[in-house]
């Protein structure tokens, strides 16, 4: 009888283990599109209608583990930059040359974090001056600062990051170039050029306040 109890117990435990191993895996039930998430943050004190012009860097920064690797302009990069510019124009802002003192600056980045396994917006932002020299925007000696932070998310893949910066008030912000809006797209095939436009579009769609 004891042997029978042991056999039945082991059988039940085995059954439970097998059932647990064949639990519905949510990842197997996601398309690439469904795997992607879009995170936006904005400065709730900002008045977006107070800005008229924007400039956008025509290349994309490639940032690996908080290190600036280089500037790039792949098909994905140029599509993302073009669509960001189009979306800003649709929202009533006028595009001007980078050196023409735009009210708003836009940086587009491809961010890869592989060493920590964790993506924290603060880490990215802490090194921001190393990725984007304020001189590029005509503000040498200025620093960057974001008045908000996003949460911490597990990451194994990269993310598309779009940052909207306040150049208009940089001097009155204690020589700080303040982030007004940031958008982050993450997930499967996030850097596939076929997905660039829809991802930028998604980030703007969930930010209706971002308009002239």
């Amino acid at each position, binding site marked *: 009888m004891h042997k*029978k109890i042991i056999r039945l117990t082991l059988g039940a435990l085995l*059954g*439970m283990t097998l059932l647990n191993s064949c639990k519905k895996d949510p*990842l197997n039930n996601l398309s690439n599109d469904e795997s992607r*998430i879009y*995170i936006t943050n904005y400065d709730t004190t900002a008045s977006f209608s107070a800005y008229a012009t924007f400039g956008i860097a025509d290349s994309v920064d490639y940032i690996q583990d908080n290190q600036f690797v280089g500037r790039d302009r792949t098909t994905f990069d140029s599509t993302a930059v073009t669509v960001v510019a189009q979306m800003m124009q649709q929202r009533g802002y006028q595009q001007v040359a980078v050196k023409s003192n735009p009210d708003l600056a836009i940086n587009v980045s491809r961010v890869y974090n592989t060493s920590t396994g964790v993506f924290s917006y603060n880490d990215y932002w802490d090194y921001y001056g190393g990725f984007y020299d304020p001189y590029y925007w005509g503000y040498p000696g200025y620093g960057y600062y974001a008045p908000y932070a996003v949460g911490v998310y597990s990451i194994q893949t990269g993310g598309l990051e779009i940052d909207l910066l306040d150049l208009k008030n940089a001097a009155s912000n204690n020589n700080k170039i303040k982030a007004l809006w940031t958008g982050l797209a993450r997930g499967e095939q996030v850097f596939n050029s076929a997905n660039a436009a829809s991802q930028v579009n*998604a980030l703007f769609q969930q930010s209706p306040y971002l308009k002239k």
Partner: protein
Amino acid sequence: MSTMKYVLIAVTLLALGTAAQAQHDLQFNINYNVNIPSGSFRDFIDKPAYKGFTAGFAYPINDQLRVGLSAGYNDYYQKFPRQVYSEGSGSDISAVVSNSVQQIPILLTADYTLTKKGFVRPYVGVGAGVNFISLDQYLGEFDDPHTNGKLAVRGEAGILIPLSSWKATALRIGGSYNYAPYNSYGINNLSNWGIHAGISVPIH
């Protein structure tokens, strides 16, 4: 005719004697379960869990009362279409959210059969113990897993249908309410209603 009558009486007495003996054997039962979330659990997942089972041993104290140990497994899952979730302070996240919960309640149980004999024997039961919970929320492909051990309390009622008069093997059909407190994601419980069907067999 009279010979046949004596034979029938003898067989009946023998069967009853065996049954009485069998009813004092340790019982093993295994059941298939379907569990339906209730309360604030429904805010996280409202679809039933079709992957579930319970298995346990029950030791007869007398013809009607049994005490034992039970282990169960339930797998809940639900995917929600893409939606923008506002996190406050200017933060918004657009994601397809998938919620996944597995519960493994390990309970001390007591069952009481309302009748000693009969083709259908109603029973009631209670159980209490530990609920091992694995809860995970996916935003797109990014998840935030939690594993906890919490209290579990079960009340159940059902019927036993003995498969023969001379063995204690019986079909077991019934329903249960599983109280499962929890505190995360704004959920204060993972309680659920369950229905089960299975078999109870004696171990000699």
